[in-house]
C-alpha cells in the first residue's frame, strides 16, 4: 500500500498538502521497510542488489552470532550482492535438508558442511566442484592452507570443499589450581607432558590441589562422540591406521587400540574422572574449580564468559607424538543443475571473503583454516587461541571414507564401544576387537548415496 500511495502523491502534478503528507508518510514507510530488508538480507529487490546468494548454514549460539557479523561485514563491503542466509538445525536434520534440496534441484548457492562428511555426500552428484580460478580471483589459494587439510577437501582430484576452520579437542586447565599444585611453568602455561606416566603424575598432583567434591578431569566418559574423538586423537599419536589405501582391508591395530582404551579407562579407575560427572557436568565442575576438562575448542567462549583463569593446549602427546582430533567446517556448493552465472560467482566471492576474514570466527575458539590469519598480530594476541594454534599441524582425523564425519555412522557405531571400555562394562582388549569387527562391517557396507562400498568408491584421495 505504501508504494502505491507514494506513486500517487509523486505522480500527480497538482500536488496538494494532504497528498504531499500522504506521499511523505508512504516514503518513510517504504524506506524503513527497505532498510529492514537490507539488514536481514531478506529481499534482493528491496535492497537494490543485483545478485542474490542464498546461503545455508548450521551455526547457532555464539558461532551463529559470529557468522552473522561476518556476513554483515561482507554485505557492507559488497552492497551489490545480497546474501540471504538461513540457519538450520545442526546435525542430521541439516544434512537431510541439504541432500534433498540438492537432489530436488532446489539447492542454495552456498552451504556449510563438516569436511569429514563430504566424501559420503556424493561429491559430483549432490555437490558441485569449486572453481579454483574463481577462488584465486577473490584471493584464496591452495598455498594458504595446511596441505593435509586441503587434501581432505579434494575428492577424485577435484576440490569440493573450502575449509573455513578446524575445530579441535583440547585439554583445558585451570591456571589457579595448577599454580597451587606447582604444575604451571614460568610462562604461565601448563608444564609439558610427553608420556602416560607423566600425565598421571600431573593428575596426581592436581588432585591434591583440588577442592573437595570436584573431579580432577572431565572427559565426557559416557558420551559416544567425545570418547570417539579422544580415541581418534590418541590412536593417531600411536601411529595407528584404519584401512589400507585401497579401502579393501582393515588395518586397525587392536594392540594399539587396547593401549588407548586402557589409558582412557585408567582416568576412571584411578579416580581422576568421576562417572557421576561424565557428561556436560564436566564443564560445570571445571568452572567450579576442577583442574582439567577435555572439551572441544567451542567451549572457549563459555569459559571466557565464566571469567575463570584458564589455558588450553591440544590433548597431551602422552604416546610421544603430537596429535589431537580435528574436524573442519567447510563451504560447499550444493548441486544445482544450472550452476553458474552471477549467483555462483557471488557464492565464490562470499566464501572467499569469509575464509579470509575469520578473525571474528576465531573468537568462537575455532582455528581459522586460512593460515595467513594465524600469523597476524591480532590472532597472536588471542588467548588461549594462540596457545593451541599448533593443532593445525597435528590433526588427527577420521579415515577418509563415506561413513566417517561429524556425528556420522562411524562415530555412531564405534563411539559406544569406546564408552563401554572407558566406563568398564567391557574389557579394553575385547572392546578393541569389537571395534575392529565393526570397522570390517562398515567397510563392506554400501554407501546408500551411490550403492558403492568404500573400496568401490575409488581412490578418494
Amino acid at each position, binding site marked *: 500500500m505504501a508504494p502505491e500511495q507514494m506513486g500517487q502523491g509523486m505522480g500527480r502534478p497538482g500536488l496538494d498538502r494532504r497528498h504531499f503528507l500522504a506521499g511523505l508518510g508512504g516514503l518513510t514507510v517504504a524506506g524503513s521497510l527497505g532498510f529492514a530488508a537490507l539488514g536481514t538480507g531478506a529481499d534482493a529487490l528491496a535492497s537494490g542488489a543485483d545478485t542474490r546468494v542464498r546461503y545455508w548454514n548450521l551455526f547457532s549460539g555464539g558461532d551463529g552470532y559470529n557468522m552473522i557479523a561476518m556476513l554483515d561485514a561482507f554485505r557492507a563491503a559488497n552492497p551489490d550482492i545480497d546474501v540471504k542466509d538461513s540457519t538450520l538445525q545442526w*546435525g*542430521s*536434520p541439516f544434512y*537431510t535438508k541439504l*541432500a*534433498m534440496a*540438492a*537432489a*530436488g534441484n532446489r539447492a542454495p548457492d552456498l552451504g556449510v558442511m563438516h569436511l569429514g562428511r563430504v566424501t559420503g555426500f*556424493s561429491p559430483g*552428484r*549432490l555437490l558441485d566442484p569449486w572453481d579454483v580460478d574463481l577462488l584465486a580471483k577473490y584471493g584464496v589459494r591452495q598455498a594458504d592452507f595446511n596441505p593435509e587439510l586441503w587434501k581432505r577437501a579434494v575428492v577424485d582430484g577435484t576440490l569440493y570443499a573450502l575449509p573455513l576452520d578446524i575445530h579441535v579437542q583440547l585439554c583445558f586447565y585451570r591456571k589457579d589450581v595448577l599454580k597451587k599444585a606447582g604444575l604451571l611453568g614460568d610462562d604461565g602455561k601448563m608444564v609439558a607432558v610427553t608420556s602416560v606416566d607423566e600425565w598421571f603424575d600431573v593428575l596426581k598432583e592436581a588432585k591434591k590441589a583440588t577442592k573437595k567434591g570436584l573431579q580432577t578431569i572431565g572427559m565426557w*566418559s*559416557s*558420551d*559416544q*562422540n567425545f570418547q570417539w574423538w579422544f580415541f581418534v586423537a590418541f590412536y593417531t599419536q600411536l601411529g595407528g591406521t584404519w584401512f589400507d589405501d585401497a579401502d579393501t582391508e582393515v588395518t586397525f591395530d587392536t594392540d594399539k587400540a587396547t593401549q588407548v582404551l586402557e589409558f582412557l579407562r585408567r582416568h576412571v579407575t584411578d579416580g581422576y574422572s*568421576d*562417572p*557421576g*560427572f*561424565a*557428561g556436560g*557436568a564436566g564443564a*560445570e*565442575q571445571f568452572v567450579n574449580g576442577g583442574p582439567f576438562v577435555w572439551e572441544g575448542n567451542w567451549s572457549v567462549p563459555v569459559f571466557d564468559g565464566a571469567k575463570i583463569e584458564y589455558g588450553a593446549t591440544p590433548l597431551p602427546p602422552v604416546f610421544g607424538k603430537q596429535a589431537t582430533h580435528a574436524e573442519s567446517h567447510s563451504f560447499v556448493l550444493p548441486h544445482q543443475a544450472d550452476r553458474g552465472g552471477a549467483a555462483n560467482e557471488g557464492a565464490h566471492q562470499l566464501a572467499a571473503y569469509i575464509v579470509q576474514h575469520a578473525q571474528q570466527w576465531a573468537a568462537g575458539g575455532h582455528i581459522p583454516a586460512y593460515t595467513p590469519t594465524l600469523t597476524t598480530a591480532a590472532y597472536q594476541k588471542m588467548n588461549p587461541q594462540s596457545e593451541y594454534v599448533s593443532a593445525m599441524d597435528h590433526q588427527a582425523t577420521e579415515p577418509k571414507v563415506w561413513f566417517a564425519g561429524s*556425528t*556420522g*555412522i562411524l562415530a*555412531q557405531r564405534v563411539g*559406544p564401544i569406546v*564408552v*563401554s571400555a572407558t*566406563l568398564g*562394562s567391557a574389557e579394553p582388549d575385547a572392546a578393541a576387537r569389537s571395534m575392529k569387527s565393526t570397522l570390517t562391517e562398515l567397510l563392506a557396507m*554400501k554407501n*546408500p*548415496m*551411490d*550403492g558403492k562400498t568404500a573400496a568401490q568408491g575409488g581412490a578418494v584421495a
Partner: protein
Amino acid sequence: MTTSAQTVIAPSRARTAAAGATVRRKQGFQHGGWFVAPFLALFALFVIWPLLRGFYLSFTDANISGDATSFVGLDNYREALDDPLVWESLGNSAYFTLLVVPCITVLAFLLAMLAHHIERGKWLWRLCFFAPFLLPSTVAANLWQWLFNPGTGMINFVFGGETPWLTDKSYAMLAVVVCTLWWTVGFSFLLYLAALQGIPAHLYEAAKLDGANAWHRMVHITLPMLRNITGLVLALQILASLQVFDQAVVMMDFLPGPEGSTRTFVQYTLEEGFTSYRVGYASAISIIFFVIIAAVALARMWLLRNREEGGR
C-alpha cells in the same frame, strides 16, 4: 458382569442399524461423506499414502536424496533380521514398555482412588495429577534432565549420592521411565477417575448393609467394575510405550544414551533413515515394527474376545 450385559445388547442394536441402513445408505453418504471428506483427504495424504510409499520403499535401496533407486526385493528385510541393532533397540523399547505399563496402571489407579475419595480441594488434586500430561514432551524431558543432573539436580540432592542417572547404562532407561510416569500418568488417571465416578453408589450402599468392609467393597465392587477400563488403559499404554521416542531422545541430547541403552526402535529407524540416509532400509525396519505393533493390538483384541466368550 457389565461385559456380558453389553454383548447382549449389542447384536440387537446392530440388527436395527442394519435394517435402517439400506434405506439411508445413499442419502447418508451424501451428507456424511462430505462431512468426513476433509478428514479422509488428510488421512489419505498423511497416513495412507506414506504407509503405502514406505511399504514400497522397503523393497528398494532408496537413499535420502531420492534418486538412483533400485529394487532389491527382500534384501532389506533379510539384513534387518541379522542386524544386532534392530534386536537391541527392539529390546530397549520392550524393556521400557515392561517397566512403564504396570507402573503407570497401578499409579493411575491409586491416584484416581485418592482424588475420588478426598473431600477437600478435589479440583486441586485432579489438576496436579493431570497437568503434566498437558506439557509438550520436550518440556517434560528437559525438566527431568535438570532434575537428574548428577551434580546440581534435585533428585541426587534429595536422595543423596552422585548417581549418574543419565550417563550410566543401568540407570539411563530408568530415568526415562520416571520422566514418562510423571508426564503421562495423568491421562490414565483421568480414565480411572471417570470410571470410578461411573460406579453406581447403590452398589456400595447395598454392600455396606450386608456388612462388607472397605477392603471387601474394593475387591468385590471397585476392581471388577474397573476391569474394562483397566483393559483399555493397558492396551493404550502398551501401544504408546512401544513407540517411545521423544522423551528418551531429548533427555539424552539426541544420542542413543550411554552405550546405546536408551536407543529405542523408533530412534534406530530415524538414525538409519536420516543419519545413514538409508531410507529403504529404514522403511523396512519400520514396516517390521508396524507388524509387531499390529500383532500386539490384534492379540489384545483376540484375548478380549476370548474372555468375553468365556464369560458368556
